[in-house]
């Protein structure tokens, strides 16, 4: 089959690789009909997540048709021919983390738990196409994928919704939604979202659905801010205005009640000096993060507010504003999304028309053009917001 693979830093390559086979009895093989490039894939390609190997198949947002099931998958859970969306964290459904619906922290699905434990203190779940640190599972930017614990994760789509309407249930829609949900939004809340990429856009939509009074989008790409504005959110361009004073202006001097970091480890900064400081430290690996968005979110949030982090971080950061965090009684909430927890309720919201996930799609490309897709997505060319690949 054809698959998009990691070929060293800043390089992806579509290659011919063997077709996947059942390895565990609860596996299924899915023929992929739609898959997507995620902002977090860029962290892998940019070389900031360790333990990538040449030939690793990328991709953790995919859906398709079940073509084979292992002997351990009960027929009432999944059958050949089912149309499914696959959540990006692989979860066993049986451990204490899964029992607490903390699927992305599943205790059993990462065969490389030892490495994960050394880096993070305790191991995290396996993730499709997301380095060997998260298990070394082949990803979904391919024609087929092996899906472990197929009786636990995949969501069956039985209505006639299009791939484009449900594909993002695999990651970015639940991730954005969890970002908003962690904010415990009240009707009087002003919610500021750093990053108007795909996850940021969904965090904004979710904040509105959950009842926020006002939602602010912070980014520097005019086309991304326009997209947020068209969806009813208030744009703030950090390349043009001072974020802090603008947020104070927009909130009557209080600061946003809830702040969402949908940027993560490769943030850019309005000040060239500060951007360079962290860029250099990241390049020499004395910190793994460029955490401008997180720092600014903490400094901006009103006292007693919530800072919700869904942007991906991988290691260590410098100059975390502990003083602001502690003295102003901020709550910091975070996590890789527990996708399985949100798929069904969000599917219902899509069916009811409360959220339209298709609004962020700007490009649809054949799988073979994945390298071009990564290029325009990374460099924000051609107004690229979200790319769907067709294998």
């Amino acid at each position, binding site marked *: 089959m054809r698959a998009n*693979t990691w070929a060293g830093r800043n390089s992806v390559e579509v290659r011919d690789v063997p077709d996947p086979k059942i*390895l565990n009895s609860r596996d299924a093989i899915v023929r992929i009909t739609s898959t997507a490039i995620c902002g977090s894939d860029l962290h892998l390609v940019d070389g900031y997540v360790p333990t990538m190997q040449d*030939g*690793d198949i990328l991709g953790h947002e995919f859906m398709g048709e079940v073509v084979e099931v292992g002997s351990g998958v009960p027929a009432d859970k999944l059958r050949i021919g089912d149309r499914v969306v696959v959540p990006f964290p692989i979860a066993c459904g049986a451990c204490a983390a899964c029992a607490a619906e903390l699927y992305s922290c599943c205790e*059993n699905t990462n065969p490389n738990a030892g490495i994960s434990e050394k880096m993070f203190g305790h191991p995290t779940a396996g993730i499709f196409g997301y380095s060997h640190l998260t298990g070394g599972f082949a990803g979904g930017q391919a024609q087929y994928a*092996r899906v*472990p614990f197929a009786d636990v994760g995949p969501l069956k789509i039985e209505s006639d919704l299009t791939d484009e309407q449900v594909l993002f249930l695999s990651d970015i829609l639940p991730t954005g939604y969890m970002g908003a949900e962690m904010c415990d939004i009240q009707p009087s809340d002003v919610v500021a979202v750093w990053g108007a990429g795909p996850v940021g856009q969904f965090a904004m939509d979710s904040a509105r659905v959950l009842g926020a009074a006002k939602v602010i989008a912070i980014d520097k790409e005019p086309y991304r801010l326009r997209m947020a504005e068209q969806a009813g959110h208030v744009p703030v361009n950090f390349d043009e205005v001072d974020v802090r004073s603008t947020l104070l202006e927009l909130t009557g001097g209080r600061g946003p009640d809830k702040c969402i970091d949908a940027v993560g480890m490769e943030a850019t900064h309005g000040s060239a000096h500060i951007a360079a400081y962290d860029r250099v430290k990241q390049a020499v690996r004395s910190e793994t993060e460029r955490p401008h968005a997180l720092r600014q979110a903490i400094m901006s949030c009103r006292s007693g507010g919530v800072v919700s982090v869904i942007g991906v971080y991988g290691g260590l950061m410098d100059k975390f504003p502990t003083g602001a965090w502690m003295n102003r009684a901020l709550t910091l909430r975070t996590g890789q999304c527990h996708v399985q927890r949100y798929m069904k309720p969000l599917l219902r919201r899509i069916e009811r028309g409360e959220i339209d996930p298709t609004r962020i799609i700007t490009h649809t490309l054949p799988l073979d053009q994945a390298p071009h897709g990564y290029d325009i997505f990374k460099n924000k060319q051609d107004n690229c917001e979200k790319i769907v690949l067709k294998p």
Partner: protein
Amino acid sequence: MSLGLGVAQLAAPDTVRRISGVDDSRRSRTVVPLVGARELVHAAGLLTSRRKGVWAWTRVAGDAMDLTSLGIAIAHRGGRRRRRLLAVTGAVAGITALDVLTAVRATQAKKIRSVPTVRSARRASQGGVMELTAATTVRKPASEVYAFWRDLENLPTFMAHLEQVRTTGDRTSHWAAAAPFGRNVEWDAEIIEETPGERIAWRSIGDADVPNAGTVRFVPAPDGVSTEVHVVLVYEIPGGSLGKAVAKYFGEEPHQQLDDDLRRFKQVLETGEVVRSDGAPWGKRARKEFPQRPAQPLSDAELEKGADA
């Protein structure tokens, strides 16, 4: 100490130069901050490294360097500056003595503290006793977790170093090690203590090549559903080539092996089998986590060759 000195030399090099009596030299303007930077490296090493002995010796080397520099400076100066230099040299000599003492202690302490490990056994090639402990929590009742372990024939499904365990009697069994552990290593074992649902203890009997014993305790976890599993394994690692093979098998981090065994034990009990990924497709036979094969499906040839590929 290194931290304070380093910061002072970098932040206020002129004051340091005046106190030391070398404020007349242009070269000292370069040397003092450099020495300051070196001190910070010492500090970072001492504060963060686990091999403090080595880092303590780097300080001794640094002291030797400083004494040399001071010697050169004294030879070129007289009067008040020379007196100051002599005072500083005296202080540095004192610090050097202290550093040597610390370094010697740190190195010795390491030797004394380490129980004979696999590593030292391998170096000495005369064997030693190795004790491994690990714990995990399984989301199943103690009776079920106990029953799985008590059926000793289940052990090879998750313990990497075991090829096969065969029950030979009510309390006796025959164990065979996996090839990397040392070829043809087999032994008989007996259960010396068992309290259903709570505890099993066993030991090798007869003329075992690698005499060993183990205890596993099953304790109800505070959540009311899960069971804590606490394992202690003791190996008497022999000298000679077998001891070397066993030592090589356990590698630099023998505890990691038992941790991984228990992770697989938990997987088997909670999910039914050992979880496989494309990067680590061979379950318990994934001896080392790195390097792995790439995260892409196996070819038919690879599948056929299996774990030995």
